[in-house]
């Protein structure tokens, strides 16, 4: 390569080089433009999108669950509360060797393999810096034992939480209910926003029906968290609201007495203040302990409760339906008075049997030998079936239905706890719809004495009794009396819902019935005279026996009580209210498979009325002895002062309620003048529109109208005497 070539090359090379640099510079500028375009795309065009993503990254909503409202009884006694509970928590981040730690902790805290397995499962699902519960609900002794050994266990702490507790345990557990874990089915129904941080929901009773009020509103803290989820600082706080406190109309003492009075018997009791519709006592026995449900009941224990033949989980007072038996007779009497089919002077002669017109079918009175000649009040007091056969036929099924419907039979009372059943009020229309059969006159007879298709809950029975006591007035039964806002202390009364007034033809129809019901208790010969003879207050009542469904309608012979297996024995009914002139308590008692209303159910009702009206139990039974006498126990005065209604929250030092006073006794209709002769009642209906007897009753139906209390003459009389 000579120098000339080299020089020439040098010039050429430099020119080439410059053009190459120029091309490179152009490409470079294009690449820079590409970068800037992408930058504009991200930072200008998609800025909003990425800003949101950045905020989503860093902001965490930490829910602050509200404290659940408390539940009090009418006297301010706590029924459901939130008790502090101690839990043992382990923070994984602070533990070096988890297995070694668990091994060391096992003897100290008594860990079970189940605890450890559950814990390890949770550790896997929880961030390392967050505590994981190892054991919950430590007792004070365990807490103390841990505290002594605490220095050994780095990363293990005792934390406090709240756990729902029911102070009365199984007592009133059906009414108060319980809370439990939120199930998939619950989640499907609720708005998850309302349950941020909450892991329990009302499952039964008031806890369920008033879930909204009790739950409160969850608050939230908006925190800035890092990529590992650890909160670093709080950005915002959204306050929630604690749950409202409920005041029930239930009287815890009365509830307790009622459950004890029932003794070993299964059954239900409903007691209502007829002046307000407030439910004073609602018993269903056997009860159950709600606490295992709160803590999370094991499948095995739950199945055991469900399969228990005495069905402790089922609320007999609202869900149990039974034929009313003879307790329907006061209402039948009222219907008869209303339509002029009976009056105080009407007399029947009971010789123990009754025949439908044009039929050879024999209907018997529970007293086979017959009651002889009776007037209306005594027919009720002695529960003469013949009188009511006649009355039922005269009234006809349609008029019976009309009156019974107004007493509330056949439809749910609307009480503010869930799962109430409506029972069944038999009617022509019902039978045509469901059974696809016409109504037979023999069935009307059966209905007239409270047997047959009837299905009535104890609560319906108590409500109907209260309506009678209120001379056709009365209120929808309810359990929640007032709701308190724990922040302001404002108490809002739940207004009593008056029921539409019952019809009346003459002002004294109610008093006639009530006078007859007083005979039941206060006259020798009345079926419940044993509880009325020494009563310091006047009781209007009626006994009854409900035929157990297991008894075949076709079986003409009612079996003997003692010869019958227990689950086939009849149920004992008793309804009552007192005092008769100014009723303060209306009550229905149903004792399952107990036989006679007068001997078994009536004493229970008497004891409850004693407790409520007198503040002590005078009438002693085997299951509940009389309250020991205290000096100068002023019986009537005590009833007026000591136990008159509620201790209002304001009397417990709380601010006065914002609305009307708690105990508003609604205006009462003046009771009809008693003792008037309802002679003109007859004028009402010659029509007999209600009862259209078929000219020739079908012969088959006779088999289905056998009253249960009727005994076959060839057998030993069953002890059904005190209907």
């Amino acid at each position, binding site marked *: 390569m000579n120098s000339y070539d080299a020089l020439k090359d040098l010039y050429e090379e430099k020119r*080439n080089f410059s053009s190459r640099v120029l091309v490179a510079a152009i490409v470079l500028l294009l690449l820079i433009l590409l970068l800037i375009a992408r930058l504009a795309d*991200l930072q200008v065009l998609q800025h909003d999108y990425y800003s949101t993503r950045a905020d989503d990254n860093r902001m965490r909503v930490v829910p602050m669950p509200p404290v659940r409202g408390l539940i009090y009884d009418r006297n301010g006694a706590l029924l459901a509360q939130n008790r502090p509970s101690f839990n043992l928590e382990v923070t994984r981040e602070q533990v070096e060797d988890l297995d070694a730690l668990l091994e060391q902790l096992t003897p100290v805290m008594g860990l079970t393999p189940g605890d450890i397995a559950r814990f390890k499962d949770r550790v896997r699902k929880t961030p390392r810096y967050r505590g994981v519960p190892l054991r919950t609900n430590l007792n004070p002794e365990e807490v103390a034992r841990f505290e002594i050994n605490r220095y050994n266990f780095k990363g293990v702490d005792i934390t406090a939480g709240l756990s729902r507790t029911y102070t009365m345990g199984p007592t009133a557990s059906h009414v108060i209910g319980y809370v439990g874990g939120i199930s998939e089915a619950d989640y499907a129904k609720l708005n998850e926003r309302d349950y941020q941080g909450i892991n329990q929901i009302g499952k039964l009773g008031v806890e369920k029906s008033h879930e909204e009020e009790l739950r409160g509103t969850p608050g939230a803290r908006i925190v800035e968290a890092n990529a590992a989820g650890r909160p670093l600082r709080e950005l915002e706080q959204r306050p929630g609201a604690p749950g409202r406190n409920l005041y029930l109309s239930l009287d815890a003492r009365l509830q307790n007495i009622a459950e004890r009075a029932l003794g070993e018997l299964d059954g239900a009791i409903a007691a209502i203040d007829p002046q307000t519709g407030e439910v004073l006592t609602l018993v269903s026995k056997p009860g159950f302990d709600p606490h295992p449900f709160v803590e999370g009941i094991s499948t095995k224990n739950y199945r055991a409760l469900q399969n228990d033949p005495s069905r402790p989980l089922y609320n007999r007072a609202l869900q149990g339906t039974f034929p009313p038996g003879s307790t329907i007779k006061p209402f039948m009497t009222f219907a008869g008075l209303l339509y002029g089919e009976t009056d105080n002077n009407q007399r029947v002669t009971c010789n123990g049997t009754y025949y439908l017109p044009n039929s050879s079918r024999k209907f018997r009175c529970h007293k086979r030998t017959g009651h002889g000649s009776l007037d209306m009040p005594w027919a009720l007091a002695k529960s003469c079936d013949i009188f009511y056969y006649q009355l039922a036929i005269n009234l006809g099924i349609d008029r019976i239905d009309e009156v019974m419907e107004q007493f509330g039979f056949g439809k749910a009372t609307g009480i503010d706890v869930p799962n109430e059943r409506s029972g069944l009020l038999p009617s022509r229309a019902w039978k045509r719809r469901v059974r696809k059969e016409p109504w037979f006159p023999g069935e009307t007879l059966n209905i007239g004495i409270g047997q047959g298709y009837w299905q009535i809950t104890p609560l319906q029975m108590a409500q109907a009794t209260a309506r009678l006591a209120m001379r056709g007035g009365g209120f929808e039964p309810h359990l929640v009396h007032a709701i308190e806002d724990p922040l302001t202390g404002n108490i809002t009364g739940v207004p009593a819902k008056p029921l539409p007034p019952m019809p009346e033809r003459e002002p004294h129809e109610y008093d006639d019935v009530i006078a007859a019901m007083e005979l039941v208790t206060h006259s020798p010969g009345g079926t419940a005279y044993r509880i009325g003879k020494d009563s310091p207050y006047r009781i209007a009542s009626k006994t009854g026996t409900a035929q157990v469904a297991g008894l075949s309608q076709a079986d003409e012979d009612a079996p003997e009580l003692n010869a019958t297996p227990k689950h086939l024995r009849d149920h004992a009914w008793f309804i009552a209210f007192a005092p008769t002139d100014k009723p303060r308590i209306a009550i229905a008692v149903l004792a399952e498979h107990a036989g006679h209303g007068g001997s078994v159910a009536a004493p229970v009702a008497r004891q409850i009325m004693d407790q409520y009206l007198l503040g002590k139990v005078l009438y002693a039974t085997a299951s509940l002895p009389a309250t020991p006498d205290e000096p100068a126990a002023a019986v009537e005065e005590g009833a007026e002062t000591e136990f008159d209604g509620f201790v209002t929250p304001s009397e417990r030092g709380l601010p006065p309620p914002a609305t009307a006073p708690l105990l508003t006794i609604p205006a009462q209709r003046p009771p009809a003048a008693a003792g008037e002769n309802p002679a003109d009642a007859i004028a009402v209906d010659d029509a007999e529109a209600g009862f259209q007897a078929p000219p020739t009753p079908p012969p088959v139906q006779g088999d289905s109208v056998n009253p249960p209390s009727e005994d076959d003459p060839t057998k030993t009389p069953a002890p059904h005497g005190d209907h």
Partner: protein
Amino acid sequence: MNTGTAFTPTPRTPATWSERLQRLHIDLWLLSLLVSIGIVGLVTLYSASGHSLDALLAQLQRLLLGFMVMAALAQVPPDYYRAAAPWFYGVACVLLALVLVLGDHAKGAQRWLDLGVIRFQPSEMMKLGMPMMVAAWLHGRPLPPSWRVVLVTLAIIGFPAVMVMLQPDLGTALLIIVSGGFALYLGGLGWRWILGALAAVAAAAPILWYRLHDYQRQRVLTFLDPERDPLGTGYHITQSKIAIGSGGVFGKGWMNGTQAKLDFLPESHTDFIFAVYSEEMGMMGVILLLTLYTLVVGRGLFIALRGHDSFQRLLAGSLALTFFIYVFINMGMVMGLMPVVGVPLPLLSYGGTSAVTLLAGFGMLMSIHTHRKLLSS
């Protein structure tokens, strides 16, 4: 400002900073631009590392070391580099071979060589050795190069590139190929060759795909669709795009970026520091930074154009363009324009070797510029 010496009556008394530095073989333009970028880097690093003073001081130390290396290398006349190029390249090749045999493992790849006294990556050495070697090789040849010369050059580029790829370190191999390739391109490689090479790469892509390591393949797939696996391999890109996008035009302000501070952005102070910068400084800040980088490249190309011989021109041009490639690849990767490759953002990313290597390159650029002047005067 570097012109106009001939007519000054007193050329011996330096009048400007520029001239004073010129005597010390330092180019004021490059120095001020590089220092500015370094300061931006330190400021960003302080925020990205979660206010870590330790990280700040360590990075400051490295930058100072880099600038000292730069100043030292600027003193050496360019001819020495030309003479040393084959030796330097040769030693680098041997060390790369040694790395493959007995290198340390870090993050699943063999990159480090422990020489007892100093532990370093021979691939960094090759980043400088490659443009030096190609420039020196083409220096004596008539340009544009003949096809024989091109073949030899491709061998010079290919041999170390393959060894770096085997480590495996795709990003560095790419940069080494690019730096040699730029020298060859500036030497006047025929356009047919260039188009042919592009076609070959396109044809080889499917074959290359099967040769890639799993994690490399994941990166490519993730690049194509970052949301494919938002918690796994796509997480980097998704989070860095969130950081950049949420920065907006004016940014969230220094130390107010949440993505890095709250650890959502991985590698926030190394390869992904650009995302932190964009989040806090916004589009305006990024344009300022891009301007600084562009000026550095422009100054480098200017020095190349004024180069005295082929070696100086090709070396300076290659160093300047490779510097831009660093910037482009890193920003493109962080913005989701290209797959994730381990290329740091020059003078911003935390980490020792790359900053020192880059600044050493600028030392050679300064040497080329300042010695040319003295020689001509």
